């Protein structure tokens, strides 16, 4: 057992020596102070804490910033999607056969007549070519909208004065 052996050592109270002769006094050397200087340690801990907090703050800021950026970009993406959709819709409307046919007619075009084919091997003309004819006479001068517009424009200012009953309140134009 080590404890009893050490016991006297930790009890600095000296036993009275047997006999009058004083034995050489044994004294425990006070342990060398284990305490390192306090200040650097505190500084280290505070520094670590501060760095940790700062890091956390930075991390949060970056995440928050990213989420703001994400939000902005998503919004922009949505806006671009809408714009793309709008443009695609315009294209679809313009290239729909109905619209194409109507515009071709407005430009004075008529469906093609029957064509002839030239067989290259013997140069024979197959088919009966026919010039395209219009099923209805075409008014080349002006398609409907432009003819109607000036007439409507000329009429609009007047009815307020001549209308037998009050004209409807002017609708606010959408734009």
């Amino acid at each position: 057992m080590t404890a009893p052996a050490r016991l006297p050592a930790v009890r600095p109270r000296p036993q009275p020596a047997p006999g009058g002769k004083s034995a050489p006094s044994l004294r425990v050397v006070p342990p060398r102070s284990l305490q390192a200087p306090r200040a650097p340690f505190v500084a280290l801990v505070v520094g670590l804490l501060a760095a940790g907090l700062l890091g956390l703050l930075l991390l949060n800021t970056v995440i928050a910033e990213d989420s703001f950026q994400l939000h902005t970009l998503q919004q922009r993406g949505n806006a671009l999607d809408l714009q793309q959709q709008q443009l695609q819709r315009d294209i679809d409307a313009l290239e729909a056969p109905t619209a194409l046919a109507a515009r071709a007619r407005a430009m004075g075009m008529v469906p093609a007549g029957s064509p002839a084919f030239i067989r290259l091997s013997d140069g024979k003309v197959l088919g009966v070519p026919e010039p395209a004819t219009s099923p209805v006479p075409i008014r080349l001068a002006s398609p409907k909208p432009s003819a109607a517009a000036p007439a409507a424009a000329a009429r609009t200012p007047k009815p307020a004065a001549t209308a037998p009953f009050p004209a409807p309140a002017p609708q606010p134009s959408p734009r």
Partner: protein
Amino acid sequence: MRLGSPGKRLQFGLVAVLVLFAVIGGRLVQLQGLDGTAYASQAERLRLRTVVLPAQRGDILDRDGNILARTVAARTVFADPTLVVDPAATAARLAAPLGVDQPTLLTQLTKPGRFVILKRAMLPEAAQAVVNLKLAGIGTQPESQREVPGHDLAANVIGFVGRDGTGLAGIESRYDTVLRGKAGVHDYQTAPGGQAMPSDLERTVPAVPGRSVQLTLDRDLQFVAQQALSERMKQTGAYTGSAVVLDVKTFQVMAMASYPTFDAGNPAVAPATALGNAAVSNVVEPGSIHKAVTISGALQAGVIDGNTVMTVPPTITKGGKTFRDTHKHGTVGITLMGILAQSSNVGTIEIADRLGAQGVYDYQRKFGLGSKTGLDFPGESPGIVQPPSKWSGPSYGGIPIGLGVAVTPLQMAVVYATIANNGLRLTPSLVRGFKTADGDFVAAPRPKATRVVSPEVAAIMRTDLSAITSKHATGKSAAIPGYVVAGKTGTGQRVENGHYTQGNVTSFIGMAPAANPRYVVAVFVHAPNGVGGAVSGPVFQELMGYLLRHYRVPPEGKAPPELFLAAARPGD
């Protein structure tokens, strides 16, 4: 008791602390152990938001990939009447941007409740303009809308979707599961303000967009078909009509027009009668176009051959009913070509007598009459053909010439396409394949083929059908300059609810170029009066003429064969 003694005090304190800890411990066990999961999930519910990510519905495309129907983002404008400050002023300001009149808006805005829809399916830009007005109690919410840029273009084929985006008719309904896709979810945690918080609970299951359905229709051809049909319908004051264009080699439906029609983008305002697809669901009596079935069958069975000249009396009586020809004649010898070109009822009935009732029935079924074509279209009718056991006396005269038979226009188009395709009948198809959002294309299954008549019989039929546009025949109005058309006119009736309806179902089915046909065009018009050649022929002419020009089919450079009516063919 004296609390002065430190021992007692300590003991008492210990007991108090122990009791306190026991209570806290008990509560802990209760909260964490017993009710724990409930509280945890409650807390999670408070933070966790689940957003359903709707799957984009697939498009419907034509054979070249042009858009026939697509889904676009739209907005619903709604009001919370309890938050609207001045309903009258709000209505006045909203009338123009919403395109809804003021009184209607005012009644909507003063309704009880907290959610009133003011306008659905607004364009996002237009809805934004409403938001920019910053009116109290007015808001928008996103929705998706099915857009059909062609409006009535192929509307009866495309069908339409309901308000919730589910296909209700036509292709939209038949291929709903393909088009629909699969909705995804996004789970995330939110801060009290509603911002998303990054966390490990965040989970995203992306939506799987629906696949696009690519049809076999040609957009331009479809337009011409609808245009030609509806113009003719208006001229003749007709009730219903349909036009079908089949590619002879594949039996793909290149165009399928139906009249009356509707705007597939706005089906709510269309009458119910305009929503169906007349080419597959209207059952009509074919009339004379059915003669091709009888005569092909007789040729294939060997009871007649290409050189047969029938001795045809002016009339023939079956079961007490007398059948006669439109062209008055005595007892004459008529070739098959003559019977088809002049549509001789008596001659056809004589041929049917040789073939027998069972034979006529067998060939009706082989040509696909009396059963669905396999197009797989909602609402398709199988038609009706009677087995010989159910034939009455007059049936022996009526059925061979297409009376008392019920067919769909598509079925008859398939009959003629079979003759055009050298006697091989394929399953007609309306869908080329399916396209994923990434552009991967999966082709539709190949059509099933059934041999009906031999190539030789089909060739004889094509020759004998090609006198139809000559000057003594019934289909002059269908002639296309430079090309030889093989075809047949027909006039029958339509039975609805067991009664013949007013007027005639006039039809013209033909193929061109006759020697090596590329396309079959079938036109059916239910008009108050008139016959097949006169009413339906011009539509055929316009449509087939366009087809040949559009797909650059050169003419054969031969004149239409001469019509041999009473005389035998040269060399006989």
